[in-house]
Every structure is written in structure tokens, then in C-alpha cells.
């Protein structure tokens, strides 16, 4: 495959004028689709070819729920490469960068699980950054029976963004990264040429929400929906669901200068600590209240009841 691709690129420049029309049709590798558009593209500018490859991996000691989420993402992105778990101690260093380089990838999704309960997602563009670290919330995997949709594996998704992605620079950056990572490259060899699902990325409450829907629309032909079919279109949720809370944006890949810091972010550790402290105070409070009550009773003793022995006889 790699060879053929190289060949196509090399051939494009010199052969453009003389031998472009009688090119053999080779549909298996997407040759046929790629070829006709190239002359028109290259006449205007250099050909754009999306060669995005995403490395997906996770830290050790990830729990099953988050691992399943990762596997779901793997099944949604045909242009990804899954790697084995990485020791979380090493994730700070350059190990991951090396790994990305080794696997020839241009971006990375790294699922980092801490304390078996907190999931962080690193979204990284490889050689020169940037990288975004998210806290992942509200995880629902595809295995849940509530999500009844299904779609082709490897069909290219439509990406919908809410417009508030364009308001702030950091959201703009996040949007661009999401587009590059989650959009399946056109004519990718593992992708299928139909569009039957749609991703939703929406910012609500300063979190990025992700949803995946199957598109079901009445049609008889492959290049046209039926008349009025667009109105009859329905969506069925396929899953997974998750919600990303951005923590920091770094300049480099897995590190570098901090470009953005979420001012509202409180780490789950702090929350838990606070909760614990609250619970710890409970007993002390109870004891205090008891002593206070005792003191109160001592200081205001009850008057002797004059009717106490009225019914004794």
C-alpha cells in the first residue's frame, strides 16, 4: 500500500501532461477515485492529502469502563493505530513521543486513568504540538443496550460543531484538533465510501460533549435521497458518549509551555478531599452538640413540677 501511494505521488508531477488519461482503473486501492481529481487539484495548488494517523493508547491500570471507551473510539476511527498500554510513570516523559514517532503517527489520543476512577484524555498533535489535556466525564460506552443504533465500521463521519467553538481562541484550537483527529481521511483504505453516521461536538457549560448518531434516511439511489427524505430523516444514537473538560493546553506534544489553563477547573482529588473533610467533621460536630446541650440543661434546670404527685394516691 505504502509503495503504491508513493508511486502515485511521484507520478503525478511528471506524468500529468502526457499520460494522465490512459491510466488503468484500480478500484481496490482507491486508485480510481483518487486519480481524476488530482489533475484539477494540482493545477490550482499542491494536492492536499490528509495523511492523519492517530495513535490510541492508554495508561496501565485503566479500568474496564474506560478501556471499553477507548476500544469504541478505536472502532470509530479507521485511521488509528492502537498500541499497548503505557506505564503511567513514563507517560510524563518522552516515551509517548517516541512511540508516536515509531508508529509513524501524526497525532495521539492518550487515555490516562488515575486512581482507577479519573480518566484524563490527552489530545496531541505529534511532532510540534500542541496538546490538550481533558478530564473525561459522563462516560457511556457503546455496549450499553440503551444505545440502539449501528453503522458501518469505517464509514466517514460527518462532524457537527456548535458555533461557540469559534468564539474563543482555545476553542478554535480544540476544534481544529478534533477535526483533524476525528475526521477519517478521504479515501483511506480502511474507510468505506458512505456516510451513515454523524458526530456531535458541542460546548455546553465549558465542556465539550460528544455524541455519535446513526443516520437513517429513506433512499433508493446512492447519490440522492428520496424527495422529502431529508425531512423524514431520523437519527439513532450509537454511542459512545463522553464529556470533555479541558484542563490545560500545552505548546508542545506532551509538554511544552502552557498556553491555556482552565480557570474553573478543580481536580477530582480536591473534590474528594473536601468531601472527606466534610464527613470527618460530622462526628466532632455531633459530640460538640451533645456537650452544648448538656451545658444548656445544666444552666437552665427545670423547675420542680407542682402537679407531679397529683395522681399518686
Amino acid at each position, binding site marked *: 500500500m505504502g509503495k503504491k501511494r508513493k508511486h502515485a505521488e511521484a507520478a503525478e508531477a511528471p506524468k500529468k501532461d502526457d499520460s494522465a488519461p490512459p491510466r488503468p482503473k484500480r478500484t481496490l486501492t482507491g486508485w480510481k477515485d483518487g486519480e481524476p481529481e488530482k489533475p484539477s487539484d494540482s493545477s490550482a495548488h499542491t494536492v492536499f492529502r490528509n495523511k492523519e494517523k492517530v495513535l490510541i493508547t492508554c495508561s496501565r491500570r485503566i479500568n474496564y469502563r474506560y478501556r471499553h471507551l477507548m476500544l469504541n473510539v478505536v472502532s470509530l476511527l479507521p485511521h488509528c493505530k492502537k498500541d499497548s498500554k503505557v506505564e503511567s510513570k513514563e507517560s510524563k516523559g518522552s516515551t509517548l513521543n517516541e512511540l508516536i514517532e515509531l508508529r509513524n503517527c501524526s497525532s495521539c489520543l492518550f487515555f490516562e486513568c488515575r486512581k482507577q476512577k479519573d480518566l484524563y484524555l490527552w489530545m496531541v498533535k505529534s511532532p510540534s504540538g500542541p496538546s490538550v489535556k481533558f478530564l473525561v466525564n459522563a462516560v457511556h460506552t457503546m455496549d450499553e443496550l440503551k444505545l440502539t443504533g449501528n453503522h458501518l465500521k469505517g464509514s466517514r463521519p460527518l462532524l457537527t460543531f456548535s458555533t461557540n467553538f469559534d468564539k474563543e481562541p482555545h476553542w478554535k484550537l480544540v476544534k481544529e484538533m478534533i477535526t483533524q483527529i476525528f475526521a477519517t481521511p478521504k479515501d483511506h483504505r480502511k474507510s468505506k465510501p458512505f456516510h451513515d453516521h454523524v458526530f456531535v461536538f458541542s460546548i*455546553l457549560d465549558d465542556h465539550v460533549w460528544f455524541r455519535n448518531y446513526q443516520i437513517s434516511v429513506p433512499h433508493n439511489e446512492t447519490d440522492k435521497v428520496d424527495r422529502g427524505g431529508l425531512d423524514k430523516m431520523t*437519527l439513532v444514537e450509537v454511542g459512545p458518549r463522553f464529556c470533555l473538560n479541558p484542563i490545560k493546553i500545552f505548546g508542545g506534544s506532551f509538554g511544552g509551555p502552557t498556553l491555556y489553563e482552565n480557570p474553573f477547573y478543580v481536580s477530582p482529588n480536591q473534590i474528594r478531599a473536601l468531601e472527606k473533610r466534610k464527613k470527618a467533621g460530622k462526628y466532632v460536630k455531633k459530640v460538640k452538640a451533645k456537650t452544648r446541650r448538656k451545658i444548656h440543661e445544666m444552666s437552665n434546670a427545670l423547675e420542680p413540677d407542682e402537679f407531679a404527685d397529683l395522681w399518686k394516691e
Partner: protein
Amino acid sequence: MVGIHKKDPSHSEDTMEEHDNLNEINDEESNSDSDSDSESEEVRAEPAKNAIYNRDGLLEKLEDISWPENVEWIHKLTVDHDQAEGVDVNDDLGRELAFYTQALDGTRKAFDKLQGMKIPFLRPPDYYAEMVKTDAHMLKVKGRVLSEKKRIEEAEERKKMREAKKVAKEVQAQKTKERAKRKKEEIESVKKWRKQRQQSGFAKGKDGEMDLGFDGDDGFARSKKRKTGVAPGDRSGGIRRGGKKGQEKNRKKRDYRDSKFGHGGRKGVKKQNTAETTNDLRGFNKGGMSKKRNG
């Protein structure tokens, strides 16, 4: 980065109970759906003052990584959607509806564009390929949907039955009331008729239609319902059938049976075998069917 703030810390949503407790503590409104807990996790605090926000750096990076300007849309397949204002994060239905409308609207726009390009983009019905979810999983999903449907139907049926029961009760009450009323009316009419008859001095044939039913003793006797197979001489109408004779005959048998099977005393002891009864073989039918048991 931020000081201590109230927060709902449960963010794995399978711990519903914990979540509820915490919500109570935090005086937040408790959310119904399971996945709403995680996003209500933050009680908006004051933003941290010293948070870094390097706009220029961000924009520079964006320029670095972004694709060339004139990339065709088909490479990106992105659609923007104007989100409705004021979507509440904790309102699960509203939130999901917002996402759904975004997806639907985006898909419509995208399909319009794709149609304009005149390239095949819809899956033909005879195109079979691997799906994201396996068939086994989809079977499970189907089973669940069906069972849910069944459950709902059953619940509805039960509800209907309950309603019907209520109605039937009312109808029955109405009926008994009516019957009582009719009875009363009939009695009244009879009384009236008697009075009239008395007034008219027992003149026969004055009101012909009444005179048929109440004429003579014969009519009364016949009106009493008789049981079938009652001897003509039996004046009780078959109620005391069997009579004294029969009872005496059956008495012995009854007594024996009572002594054997119960009616007074513990049965357990009586029914147990003793040494005598085990040796006593009288009860067995030695000579086939012909001999009658004498017990």
C-alpha cells in the same frame, strides 16, 4: 489553582446512590438521569485569577497545525450549527434534544452539499460490510427493546383491567339497585291491585290481567320451584331428599370414615402402623377381585 469550592465529586455515574447523598449535602437539585451527575460536578466558583491564557500563542499554534485554507469540504465534512441559547446542562432531555437537533441540522446541511457534488454517498441496500456493533450485540439490543415494549404493554393492560374492574363494580351496584327498585315497584303494584280489589268488593274479572296469576292455590303451588326428579308425593320439594332412612344407613359408614380419616384427635398416631397392624393381613385382597373387604 482554585480554592475550596463546593462540588459534586461523583463522576462515575454508576454510583447513583452516592451521588444522591452528595447532592443532598451540597444542596443541589438532584438530577434524575444517570449521566447528569458528572456535568453538575462544578459549582461555578470564581475563576482563578492567575490562570494562563496566551491568546497569541494559541492562535499561532492553530495556524501551525491547521490545514490549508482552500481544502475542499469533502476532506473535512464539518458543519457548524447555531446552538439554541439557554440549554440547561442538568436538564437531560433538553440537553440531549439540543445535541440531536444539532446532529440533524448538520446532517441535512451536509447531505445537501453531498447531493450537490453528485457523488454516491448513501449506502446501497445490498452493501453488506462489517458494522461497528456485532450482530450478537444488536440481537441483545433488540431483545431489550422488545422486552421493554412488552413490559409497557403489560402495564397498560393491567391498568385497563383495573379501570374495567372499577367500571364493572359500578355497573353491578347499579344493577342491584335497579333490581331492588323493580321489586319494590312490583310489591307496590300488587298492593295497589289488592286495594283496588278490596274497593271493588272482590269482583271477579274486573281487571283481567291480574286475575290469572293469583287465582286459587294451584297457582301458588306451581310457582314454587321444584327440583328435578322429585317424587310427586314429596311435599318438601326435594329439599329433604334422602330422608331419615338413608341417613341412618349412611351413618355407620360416616362414623367409620371419621374415625379413620380425622374429625377429632390426632391423625398421625392413628394412621401409624403398629405391630398388630403389620401382622394383620386381612386388608389385602388375596383372592383377586371377587372377595369383598371386611374392615
